[in-house]
């Protein structure tokens, strides 16, 4: 069993806007690319050109269709990765201490040197946010790009997770959710950001912003000035005479 810190100095996490996520998977592949080359073992792919390609991804986009009475059916794109929970069950279940939550920023990581690939953490996570890498035999998960966000070899503007940097629609935001004045906290407050599966008691740090109401655009109609071409041309002559230069 591994212990969680009593509190963390900061709570770094993501705010994901479900109103603007178009489901393009840019974040999925940017994450795959960065984390294949960086933190720990590469994200491997089994049978990559065959019948059942299964690779390790730390972030995936799911799409859900929503049908409600008296409303047009709609589709919501739902990106999902580790939510860096305050009460992370994946940490407390770890038998070796490989899973841990960082005191300074709350990021949940796996120390691959200590990971025995037992899979208990993946079983404990209610979000399905951990994937055991089949080639390496260690548990992989979102690191919040811990090797980017403090990386002094990168320009300061690039010190954010790869998924946030790449998101074309600007639907992903990164920041300190412990600071009520941070841009992400403000966004959560303004837009009614919510926890995923709060009943699980995991206290996720990541938040989701709900889609705005759909299909309730303005109603009403324009008032005709004429019903036929002759009437329209008569109206037009009158309207033109009021324009500058009109007689």
């Amino acid at each position, binding site marked *: 069993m591994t*212990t969680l810190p009593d509190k963390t100095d900061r709570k770094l996490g993501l705010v994901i806007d479900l109103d603007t996520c*178009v*489901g393009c998977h840019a974040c999925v592949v940017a994450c795959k*690319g960065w984390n294949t080359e*960086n933190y720990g073992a590469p994200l491997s*792919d089994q049978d990559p*050109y065959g019948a059942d390609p299964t690779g390790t991804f730390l972030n995936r986009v799911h799409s859900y269709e929503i049908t409600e009475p008296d409303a047009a059916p*709609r589709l919501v794109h739902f990106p999902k990765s580790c939510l860096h929970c305050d009460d992370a069950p994946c940490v407390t279940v770890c038998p070796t201490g490989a899973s841990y939550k960082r005191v300074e920023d709350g990021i949940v990581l796996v120390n691959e040197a200590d990971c025995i690939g037992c899979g208990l953490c993946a079983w404990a996570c209610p979000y399905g946010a951990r994937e055991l890498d089949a080639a390496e035999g260690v548990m992989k998960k979102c690191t919040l790009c811990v090797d980017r966000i403090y990386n002094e070899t990168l320009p300061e503007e690039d010190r954010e997770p790869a998924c946030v*940097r790449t998101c074309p629609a600007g639907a992903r935001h990164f920041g300190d959710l412990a600071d009520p004045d941070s841009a992400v906290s403000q966004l959560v407050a303004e837009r009614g950001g919510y926890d995923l599966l709060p009943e699980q008691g995991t206290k996720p740090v990541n938040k989701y912003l709900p889609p705005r109401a759909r299909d309730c655009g303005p109603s009403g109609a*324009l008032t005709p000035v004429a019903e036929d071409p002759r009437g329209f041309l008569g109206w037009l002559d009158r309207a033109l005479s009021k324009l500058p230069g009109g007689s």
Partner: protein
Amino acid sequence: MPKDQPGLDMSPPVSDEVRRTTCYMCACRCGINVHMKAGKVAYIEGNRDHPVNKGVLCAKGSAGIMQVNAPSRLRAPLRRVGPRGSGEFEEITWDAALDLAVSWIRPLRDSAPEKFAFFTGRDQSQSLTGLWAQAFGTPNYAAHGGFCSVNMAAAGIYTMGGAFWEFGQPDWERTKLFLLFGVAEDHDSNPIKMGIGRLKARGGRMVGINPIRTGYNAVADDWFGITPGTDGLLILALIHELMRAGRIDLDYLARFTNAPILLNGDQKSNDHGLPLTDDGGTPLVIDRRTGQPAPWNGQGVEPDLTGTIRRAGITHRTVMHEMATHFMDPQWSADAAEGPTGIPAARIRALAADLARTAFDEAIEIDQPWTDFRGHRHQKMIGRPVSVHAMRGISAHSNGFQTARALHVLQILLGAVETPGSMRFKPPYPKPWHGHPKPHAAGKPGQPLDGPHLGYPAGPDDLLINPDGSPKRLDKAYSWEAPLAAHGLMHMVIPNAHAGDPYRIDTLLLYMANMAWNSSMNTDDTIAMLTETDENGDYVIPRIIYSDAYASETIAYADLILPDTTYLERHDCISLLDRPICEGDQVADAIRWPVIQPDRDVRPFQSVLIALGARLGLPGFVTEDGSPKYADYADYITNHERRPGVGPLAGWRMSETGLTQGRGAPNAGQIDSYIANGGFWTHEIPAEAQFFKPWNTAYQDFAVSMGFYDAPQPYLFEIWSPPLRRFQLAAEGKGDRQPPEHLRADLARAMAPLPTWYAPLYGAEDYPVHALTQRPMAMYHSWGSQNAWLRQIHTSNLLYLPTAIWDAQGFAEGDWARLTSPHGEITVPVALMAALNPHTVWTWNAIGKRKGAWALDGDAPEATTGFLLNHLIGECRPGTQTRRSNSDPVTGQAAWFDLRVRIEKADPPEGARPAFAPLRSPVPAAPRHLRWKVGR
């Protein structure tokens, strides 16, 4: 207490070096930072400084690393040694490959150049490929626009001198209401996503008009689940509502469009319905200052929208008069549109009201004076913050040209083109149709063609037809069957060559187009056409040369393969002579350069084409002594001049005093300067010139200074299209050049000079369901499906059925369905989707692969349950006596989305039907595992 945290290196070096070039995972042309470790590609991200993507990058772009290591990459030139389709090839040297190609095509050039045809697919070097084909002298050249979106391009150019994507974009920073018609994903991939994100962040609204609610339509605030092929009716209903309410921009219409132009009202005249002109041929308006006729472009003229003039007992009225008569007809009312479109009339009226309110009640003012071409000084720039985007969804129908015209006229009526907050042209556009060349097809053996292949006809006199009316071009572009075929008809090249209609050819050169699979209608018959032999045992299409970087389905059907490089191993230019990367307020172009060297015996196609040109001695490709003029494509990019001082790249040119831009002499260090700047060049358009570009003297002067054209060319938007009217006059029996009788009625309707709508021509009563494909955001046609990462997102495709069909026929999860069209039958796996037009089924485009292609295993889902709709789509229209292409009768645009089907439950087969025999792969088997880390 927490366990002691392990020490982490928080600042690991990301790469040894960053090489900045241009993405080519789709046609979007984003800037990318390629992070290198030990000479290998370690990571690809967006370039923050780049005008197109400003740092972001889509899934395809980030997966580029899996494209440059793809096992499907071709390895060496191949010569076919077995029968076509057998996949039996031998590797040959480049010298042998070039010699073989020259031995085939040099005799054609010297005897009958039209027997050599050259068509390119997703080609971003058309200014080179077109020049080469022109020098060769064949009339048979085009790129793939005919089966892509030529309706959008041609309708835009003919109506307003520009179109969407390469030529224009929403003013994303200012727009308040954005209408997206029929786009799942587009060439303008990242800019659309960025724009939607910014619009929403500002509180703006987005309306999606699409039978299918995925992707962009899923985030649209309002969704109009329109029935396919009826967009034109919806748009005309919006126009009808706006006109009826007088909610149109009268000042804009009077000053900047041809609404006040006087039309010849003499029904007996051969010029009936064409502009009245002065003796010099300049169209006339009534000047409100004098009440007298005046040239439209006279200094100080105030055009009168309702002017009339009476001559010889005949009253001549304005275009505006025709617009009132036409658009206010009850056939275009919201009530009339409700049934066919499936959109309630009340919603159409509400959308019209929303458009008017946003355009006029929420108008934008920019405090920037400017002067128009009549010398009128405007104190402010008044903006109409309504913007629109559309592409293949509305254009790939046989009524798509008129639908796209209607959409542009809607924009124009609102004053929502080239005004702040609306649509902005991207240099070198705006450029009116009459500022483009006419099409050319006259050649003589051993000589270049008489001019550029593709252009914009003014009327029947510009058609490329023989005295007997037969087409001069193999694809019948610019014939009576497709008079305004500005991009050619690539989808008809193989069928026409096979049918010998209008004639047979000898050698077909194809580049980057998967014509034996997803890029052709009627795929199975196309394969048969490629393999059919005549009574002598010779192939009906005798020789096929193909260039591609990957082991696509088409490889097996070519006789000579010229293997291309990947996009990170090559030079390219994204040129102002072609389709550059400009923004509404920026002139910009870009390059690709070899950030890695090929590890195979492959060469960039453009360099190969230049080498072939030199071996053939083509003018422009050899020096006076006959030696090669250019060493390779990079040399051409640097040193070619289209006109004095105007070359492929506009940045870092040379003047007498040093570096310059726009016009200037070639500069040997130009490509190095591009590389140092991140692979691109930009130049800001002056503030006074940033809007109202077609009429703005500051912009016109700027355009001349940059070399876009050689003299200012202000023009009016053509709501009433004189070129269309000239063709319609011919169809009405006027003039010397007359269409064949069997096309007369179609032309009279399709060539209407004001936007109109007619039911799609391929539609058949017995086939009640519309069937569509959509481009997935994480794939691009056939470029991505062999990509190890992207194929894990879309490994196979299903046919999505709306609830009404699903329930009525008792479908359940895991079921299969048989689809029958007038042309063919397929059996495919299905799934339920509620957010779908009730008369429409759809699937993802080009996921289905043929067994053996793309270095995929034979049991890959793409090749077992994956499928194409292409088998259902005939390249010829059913029920016609003669071969009529399944295309828009105006432009020849392939009418992919006219497809109608019947659907019924089917017993699950072993795999999707039809099934094809496996291809023999020209490349070794793919790896079983990937652990791709270059910086271990």
